[in-house]
């Protein structure tokens, strides 16, 4: 099967998964105790006003009918009105999502740039002091949650040392570049505004690094153990016995099979990144999806809850499709088996 057919098939599956997810979260949001209409209006609002809002939200209809209405609106490009912002949820999400995506993107860049080289190094120097240090740090990274790192970074680098900003995406007084992608770093580069770009990067470093540490530790450990395993495999010994240059053995024959488990795990780590991003965003006052999502849950803003969960699910699904494609490019066995299905 060709790559395009394979992709089309995967995307087809993803649509089903997302519809399943929407049914689940739609139902869950509505069966929780608490009347969203009453919570949206003030506690002293008259009964008739609450009843009118309930009508308006179609809360008096049976659940499946409510869902079908929601689905119809979703396909025509509306996720319903938010009771908090009084705007369409989709409009809200397009406003807040880019900040979260930018944070995730930089966390991923840190992740890939550090986890793989550190893991390769530790694996090649297995059981030496280098490896022991890496393993020690990896344990710390795996066990301590991202928000703890976020608080430590905030205190140490932001408050005590004062070498990096700790609030928001840009310093006060720095103009946001015109919105093209919504990612300030990219938009400022496109418009050639270099000082804004630097300011945006300096704001990104602490939160994205705090976010990335867990996955870095996890993936470095996995890379290390798969390098150790592969180093003792006959095919690496055979490459050495044929007199191939060391660099070529490591960067070609060792690296490719060693990275397959790492990249697979990366797909799962992206999902946990999304989750941790909610807490890290709160700590760094990052104007992303987290505040929106948290308020939505506290106020039982039904449409916003469903919208935020759906977008998170979508990002996760896309990340996993990309990861699966990369893995299948790295490993011909997976490619042939997957695509033969």
């Amino acid at each position, binding site marked *: 099967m060709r790559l395009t057919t394979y992709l089309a098939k995967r995307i087809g599956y993803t649509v089903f998964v997302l519809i399943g997810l929407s049914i689940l979260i739609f139902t869950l949001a509505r069966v929780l105790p608490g009347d969203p209409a009453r919570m949206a209006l003030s506690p002293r609002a008259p009964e008739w006003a609450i009843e009118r809002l309930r009508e308006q939200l179609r809360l008096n209809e049976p659940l499946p009918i409510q869902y079908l209405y929601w689905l119809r609106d979703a396909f025509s490009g509306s996720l319903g009105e938010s009771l908090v912002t009084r705007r369409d949820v989709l409009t809200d999400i397009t406003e807040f999502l880019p900040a979260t995506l930018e944070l995730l993107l930089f966390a991923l860049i840190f992740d890939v740039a550090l986890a793989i080289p550190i893991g390769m190094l530790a694996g090649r120097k297995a059981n030496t002091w280098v490896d022991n240090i890496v393993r020690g740090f990896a344990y710390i990274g795996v066990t301590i949650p991202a928000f703890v790192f976020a608080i430590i970074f905030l205190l140490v680098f932001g408050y005590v040392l004062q070498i990096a900003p700790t609030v928001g995406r840009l310093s006060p007084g720095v103009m946001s570049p015109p919105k093209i992608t919504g990612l300030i770093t990219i938009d400022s580069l496109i418009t050639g505004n270099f000082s804004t770009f630097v300011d945006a990067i300096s704001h990104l470093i602490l939160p994205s690094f705090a976010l990335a540490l867990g996955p870095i530790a996890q993936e470095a450990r996995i890379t290390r153990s798969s390098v150790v395993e592969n180093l003792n495999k*006959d095919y690496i010994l055979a490459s050495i*016995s044929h007199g191939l*240059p060391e660099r070529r053995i490591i960067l070609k024959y060792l690296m490719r099979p060693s990275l397959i488990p790492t990249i697979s795990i990366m797909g799962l780590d992206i999902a946990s990144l999304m989750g941790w991003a909610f807490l890290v965003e709160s700590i760094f006052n990052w104007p992303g999806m987290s505040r929106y999502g948290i308020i939505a849950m506290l106020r039982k803003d039904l449409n916003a809850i469903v919208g935020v969960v759906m977008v998170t699910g979508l990002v996760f699904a896309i990340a996993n499709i990309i990861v699966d494609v990369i893995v299948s490019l790295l490993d011909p066995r997976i490619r042939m088996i997957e695509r033969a299905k």
Partner: protein
Amino acid sequence: MSNTLLNVEELHVHFKVYGGILKVLNDVALKVNEKEKVGLIGESGCGKTTTMRAIMRILPWNAIVPKAKIYFKGKNIMKMSDSELKKLRRGSISMIFQDPTAALNPVFKIRDQLFDIVRYTNLEVGKNLSKKETEEEAVRLLREAALPEPERILDSYPFQLSGGMRQRVCIAMALASAHDLLIADEPGTSLDVTIEDQILRLLKQIVEEKRTSIILISHALGAVKGFVDRVYVMYAGCIVESASTSDVFREPLHPYTKGLLAAVPKLTGGGVPEGIKGRVPDYMNPPIGCRFVTRCEYAMPICERKQPRMINAGNNHEVACFLYGE
């Protein structure tokens, strides 16, 4: 007497493992002359592969080599620099691994793997091959290893080939650089017997045509009978007997070799032979004397105290056993 190509003396290899040190190879000595076909026989786990990996300098990280002299054309491999080793591996010695499935990188096409080997072995002799020349050479090597449709093989991944084909690919890879010595580590053991036979015939034909030396490792004396000129018998990390192939079969001296020969089932009937009683000694605490002492039916008091040295029993037939003097 022809020239000595490889001379291994006093080779000791230990392995550091959880809970202690495995003293596997104990004073291994063997010699391979130019154009000679040598067999190394012994049961699984006796250190045959370790000996060969020590020669290629590809022992695993936990191996310790307290003592070793491995001379190849008069030069000590143990003291070679990285570039000398590279030259040796690219131009002189090559090894065929026991399991061809494990010896081929699973995520690269044969083309990728074989081309690299061809390119670097030729680079070593000053030939910078173009892509087309590399391909021609690769195809030639595959043909030499008796593989049909070399073009299709090049475009396959290892998992798309049969076991026999994989082993032939490994042979083709080894042929790129085995100009003096080919080490074949049980080259058919992981295959069925008919394929094993074909592989052995192919190897014999190749080394006779190219006039290179070969060390053929096997756990079965019968498999090497029609192949090699001389046999080394190994037991628990020690060489116990060395003689011309015909002498070993006609008159085995060491009790272990006798046991090995008796353990071969005969076509003429008589049921399954008894085999050798007991087990290979614990490498962590090997016997102080002869390592075969616990299983030997001729064991004497001296065997427990002292390690037997190789002695010449005449006609270049050497044996490490107190039954024959000292």
